């Protein structure tokens, strides 16, 4: 079968003909319908290597952390998945027994081995191929959502939903939310906030024209980052600021703005990793407020976001391409516009 193979870190991945994956007892074998190119898929091919990313556990490796498809075979120990199920991979790997796992925050599992063991595209062959084997514990049914929508949703939509879920108390219908950034996660967040909850969304982005050019943009107001400051926000919403701020950029400038835009009791979510931070303490505006630094999303979040996208028809533009054309994809930025590969 065809697969996108990485021979060595920092090299461009190549299309290769490889054997079908071996199915372990706890695995399901999936006919890949779609794979969504992830930041890790690209970072592994770049020089210098991005040390902040998870690193591949084996080489050579078939890339592809996020994918959707139909189960065509199950291992002998598989219990809750059957041939014919349409599934996505549910990040992350998690141990199921530490405190974060036990409280539905399994994306913050404190067991490092569980996070990386047998994870497709990270420590074993991934989904940028015609078939992929994945442990049962890492897959979830897509419900009614199409594989086209499900694969990018399992990466970017999940991260957006998790960022909203942890601040959900403040992100109530009619409340104001600022979303910083115009990337895929930010655009999912705008859709979920506006259509899924009924928040009034203010988007703040470096590239207003790019955000407006998308087929769907769910923001009620779009501000250029250069013009956005606490005073502008207060004029816009009245009162002291907005109820929730989701920062999908996370630079020094964006997090300084995030910290100043929230009202008293407001919730700030730091969801970008650009080196910035939000200070919480005396003398800051958001008395009784909070800030949380988030990464990814939980299995529970994935269930919910897949259902929500299916029920609301919220969509985020993506490009569709073939396996052949993502060879030399090392300069693509999939975080901006998701790249859905049909092997």
């Amino acid at each position: 079968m065809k697969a996108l193979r990485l021979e060595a870190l920092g090299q461009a991945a190549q299309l290769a003909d490889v054997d079908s994956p071996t199915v372990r007892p706890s695995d399901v074998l999936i006919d890949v319908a779609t794979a969504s190119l992830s930041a890790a898929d690209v970072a592994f091919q770049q020089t210098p290597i991005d040390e902040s990313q998870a690193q591949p556990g084996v080489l050579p490796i078939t890339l592809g952390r996020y994918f959707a498809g139909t189960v065509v075979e199950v291992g002998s120990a598989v219990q809750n998945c059957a041939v014919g199920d349409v599934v996505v991979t549910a990040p992350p790997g998690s141990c199921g027994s530490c405190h974060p796992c036990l409280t539905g925050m399994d994306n913050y599992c404190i067991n490092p081995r569980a996070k990386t063991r047998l994870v497709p595209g990270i420590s074993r062959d991934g989904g940028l191929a015609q078939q992929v084997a994945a442990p049962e514990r890492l897959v979830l049914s897509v419900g009614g959502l199409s594989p086209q929508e499900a694969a990018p949703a399992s990466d970017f939509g999940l991260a957006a939903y998790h960022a909203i879920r942890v601040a959900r108390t403040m992100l109530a219908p009619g409340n104001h939310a600022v979303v910083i950034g115009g990337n895929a996660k930010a655009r999912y967040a705008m859709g979920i906030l506006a259509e899924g909850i009924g928040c009034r969304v203010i988007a703040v982005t470096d590239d207003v024209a790019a955000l407006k050019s998308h087929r769907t943009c769910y923001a009620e107001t779009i501000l250029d980052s250069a013009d956005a400051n606490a005073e502008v926000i207060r004029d816009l919403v009245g009162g002291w600021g907005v109820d929730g701020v989701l920062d999908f950029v996370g630079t020094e400038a964006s997090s300084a703005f995030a910290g100043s835009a929230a009202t008293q009791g407001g919730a700030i979510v730091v969801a970008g990793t650009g080196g910035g931070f939000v200070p919480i303490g005396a003398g800051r505006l958001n008395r009784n407020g909070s800030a949380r630094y988030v990464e990814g999303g939980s299995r529970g979040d994935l269930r919910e976001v897949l259902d929500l996208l299916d029920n609301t028809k919220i969509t985020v533009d993506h490009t569709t391409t073939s396996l052949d054309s993502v060879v030399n994809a090392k300069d693509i930025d999939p975080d901006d516009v998701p790249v859905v590969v049909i092997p």
Partner: protein
Amino acid sequence: MKAYRLPALGTPAAFADAPEPKPGPTEVVVEVQGAGICASDLHMQSPAYPVNEIMRTWPMPMTLGHEVAGRIVELGSDVVGWEVGDLIVAGAGPGCRTCWQCTHGNSAACQFAGLQFLGVGRDGGLASHVAIPEENLLDRMGLPPEIAAPLPDAGATAYHAVKAAHGVLNAGEPVLVIGTGGVGSFAVGILKAITNCRVIAIDARDEGLELARRMGADDALLAGANNRDEVLEITGGEMCAAVIDCAGAPVTVDLASALTRPSGEIVLVGMSGGAVKVGPGHVQPGVRAHFPFGSNRRDLVDLMTLIRDGKVKPVVETFPFDDVVEAYGRLAAGEVVGRAVALFD
């Protein structure tokens, strides 16, 4: 009547003669039985106290005392919920009743209600009588005045802070309280009462550690450069589900950031120049930092219930009202163990 009054912000308070209070239409007059002695009263007397536009409008001289337990002796014309003789405690109000926060029970984060309160913008409870708006009153559940008086500020603030972290306080997980003075020691007692966590206390004074132990702390550590390693040694390497930092200094905030596990909670109560840096590289992934200023009426009711039922046992040091000057002196010198309360005959 005799009152302990502030002539102006940034100047020393002293005993003075004050007019007997009259109730406004929606106020009651309370005969004070106990009044809490708080360090914030000392701050208001400091020439370095930052005075903003709103504070400039406060009527002066002003009687201090923002924690009051007493008995209602007179009702305003439009008071609906109270009778003469009711034993009350005065606490946070319900806010504006209109904004999102107030309509969801979190008036501590009200955008619109000012900070004006007894002893903080109007005459307070360090006098034989005080006028109190009806909306600030709560029945004090039979608690004696020396127990009830310190609850609206020190106690309820601690309860509000613990509640901010309550979602992650799983059985057996370690939780750290930094700074176990008036507020932090309440936090220790509340944590022991409403969770099954292992409560570790850190304080810079032996008196603080003694107080933390009396409130039920499982471990008490003197503040020092090796606190991070000492805590991890106690827990067997496990990080804390939550850290409640009642000191709020740069060094304690760093300690809190270093000891809170992924998806744990940092609750910053103290205000000594520290700020938690929420972002990658500064805290573990998933960590949330709060700054839960003040409290809600719910917090005070819940705490009084715990105390009435014997689950939290406050430590107080009482002074006759006539010895208030000495009480503030001992507070300023760090000699008070627990909360200082002035009692009236």
